[in-house]
């Protein structure tokens, strides 16, 4: 358990270099052939010059585009990956949820796998025996605990594995994107368990694409890009930087842009209820989008439109000034228009905003940016589901 002021994870100039060897597994013949041809394998640095400290009892998030080195970082902390240079020191008992159920054997029952997995995590057998009932209850498998895990659904598999890890009382818990699996109720229980570990001063290192979860749970965030830690700091501004610099234009999101550019979208700023620039918004509160435009000439009766999609492409909503009954006579030069969603009825998750400016009769697209602006939503209301419905109960009348 961490004392205040202790450093739980300390990385000093850590680098990890990989040799690129294509998809084929390494072979003796392959090695000999490339040695004879005198070809040196291509190399790339998955992580370079990483230096950071995680104080005991803190929760750190690691964010960044796919392939930026996040998982290598976690593997280096866990001790499974050997660094090419530098040193990582992790104090206390480490438990990684890098891949839940990695040690499960399909032919063994849930009970047998609990003991096996616990042994791999270094938990003494007596402790597991004592806590077995709690583990089984947390996993919620009922009589299936005596069945071979071969017959489990993927959700049951993950539940059992998380139950073992959560009950293992680690000093340092490494979590890699595993909470994305399982049903909503189980995810909430996992998050509860994570909060409990935080309360008990455990150190957590958290890799996730769920930016709203990172913002909610982490004390600090490391932003990794192309193997370098490019930023470290408070969650909100670091996530904002990630979204602005690495997710939007040219980022991992598939975006499109087209139009005549007679008037173009020059600059877009997301603002929260207090008017501060933000990237993560809360369900039930206003979200503002300030769109600055620049026109080459005079444009008669332009229409500004927007649409919102979920990160996996579900079209949520689309509208424009024409539908909303806002007629803009004409624009010229530069200016700003504000789009407000109030209250925001999206639930937790990542979303993509598209913006467009077109003519009144839709004949001319001036500028359209499709899926160009990512943002995240955090739902503190406790309600579940895909969208927030403004609902109300009428108390029952007696008699």
């Amino acid at each position: 358990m961490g004392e205040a002021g202790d450093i739980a994870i300390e990385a000093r100039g850590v680098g990890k270099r990989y040799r690129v060897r294509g998809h084929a597994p390494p072979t003796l013949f392959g090695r000999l052939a490339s040695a004879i041809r005198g070809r040196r394998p291509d190399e790339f640095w998955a992580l370079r010059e990483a230096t950071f400290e995680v104080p005991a009892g803190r929760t750190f998030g690691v964010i960044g585009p796919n392939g930026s080195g996040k998982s290598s970082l976690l593997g280096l902390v866990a001790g499974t990956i050997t660094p090419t240079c530098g040193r990582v020191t992790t104090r206390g008992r480490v438990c990684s949820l890098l891949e839940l159920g990695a040690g499960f054997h399909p032919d063994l029952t849930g009970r047998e796998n609990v003991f096996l997995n616990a042994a791999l995590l270094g938990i003494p057998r007596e402790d597991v025996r004592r806590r077995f009932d709690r583990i089984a209850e947390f996993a919620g498998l009922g009589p299936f605990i005596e069945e071979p895990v071969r017959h489990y659904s993927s959700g049951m598999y993950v539940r059992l594995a998380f139950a073992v890890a959560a009950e293992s009382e680690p000093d340092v818990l490494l979590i890699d994107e595993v909470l994305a699996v399982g049903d909503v109720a189980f995810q909430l229980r996992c998050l509860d368990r994570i909060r409990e570990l935080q309360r008990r001063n455990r150190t957590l290192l958290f890799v996730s694409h769920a930016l709203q979860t990172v913002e909610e749970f982490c004390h600090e965030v490391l932003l990794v890009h192309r193997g370098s830690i490019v930023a470290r700091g408070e969650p909100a501004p670091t996530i904002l930087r990630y979204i602005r610099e690495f997710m939007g234009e040219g980022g991992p999101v598939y975006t499109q842009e087209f139009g005549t550019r007679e008037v173009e979208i020059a600059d877009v700023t997301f603002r929260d209820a207090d008017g501060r620039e933000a990237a993560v918004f809360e369900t039930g509160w206003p979200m503002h989008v300030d769109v600055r435009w620049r026109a080459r000439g005079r444009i008669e009766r332009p229409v500004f439109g927007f649409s919102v999609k979920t990160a996996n492409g579900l079209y949520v909503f689309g509208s424009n000034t024409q539908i909303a009954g806002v007629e803009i006579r004409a624009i010229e030069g530069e200016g700003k228009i504000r789009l407000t969603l109030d209250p925001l009825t999206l639930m937790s998750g990542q979303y993509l905003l598209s913006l467009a400016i077109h003519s009144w009769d839709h004949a001319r697209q001036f500028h359209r940016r499709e899926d160009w602006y990512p943002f995240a939503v955090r739902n503190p209301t406790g309600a579940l589901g895909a969208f927030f419905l403004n609902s109300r109960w009428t108390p029952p009348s007696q008699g």
Partner: protein
Amino acid sequence: MTAGSASRIVNTRLGARIEPSGPRVRATLELLGALVGRELKGRYKGSALGFLWAVLVPLFMAAIYVVFLRMLVGRALTPDRVVVGVFAWQFTAQSVQAGMASVTGNANLVKKVFFPRWLLPAASTLAQLINYLLSLLVQFAVLGVLAARGAAAGVSVDPLLLPAAVALLTMLNFGMALLLAAAHVHFRDTQHLVGVLLSAWFFVSPVMYDLDLLRPWLAGRPWLEAAVWLNPLTPLLTGLRAASLDGVAWLPPPWAAAGLAVAPATLALGAAVFRRAQRHFADLL
């Protein structure tokens, strides 16, 4: 396996290690036990006959060798010696094959969890040893039946020589498991090479024959005799026969101690190679 609260994992260019580096005997033994249990349970749960297969396979093979070799070389060959040889050979061959795949077959584990990697080949060899020890019971039952029917010499267990020979054979098998497990991660074509070498080794070792059968060839060719004795399986199999059967003398020439020394030497080499190679396991799996 991870460290206790007071310890830490230090991960450098030379690989991750736990500090302070005191022995963690209990945790290591518990994990080893769990891994062996997984091997054994996993192997026998899938088939209805379970453990019986582990015994039936060498029995069938011994029967086949006896029948065909008798057709080739006549009555010179006694079934009891073949049974002892084939059971021991099965132990070695299975240890080599399973040991080679012990790290590559647990890629998920090696990539995701930090624990002493040598436990994987160790668990694999230990599971094979348990198998062999159980099959020895069957072996002696079979030898007893053969002796009762007059088809073989009497059974006599040497309480010192038998455990010593089994221990040395296990040492040899564990050494090869370490060596090949590491090699298989780095060179995935190791398995083809090992398949070929295993069949060659089977024929040059006195598994289905014993040294008496070689006498005519060995006479007058001392270098050939030396080569035969340097194969660690020659003194080990002969020792196992001497430890199990009446009338088998075990008097290797003094210099054949080199053949026996191959077993600990293989273990030392395997341990050194494995220790160095394990740093890159997660990168190559």
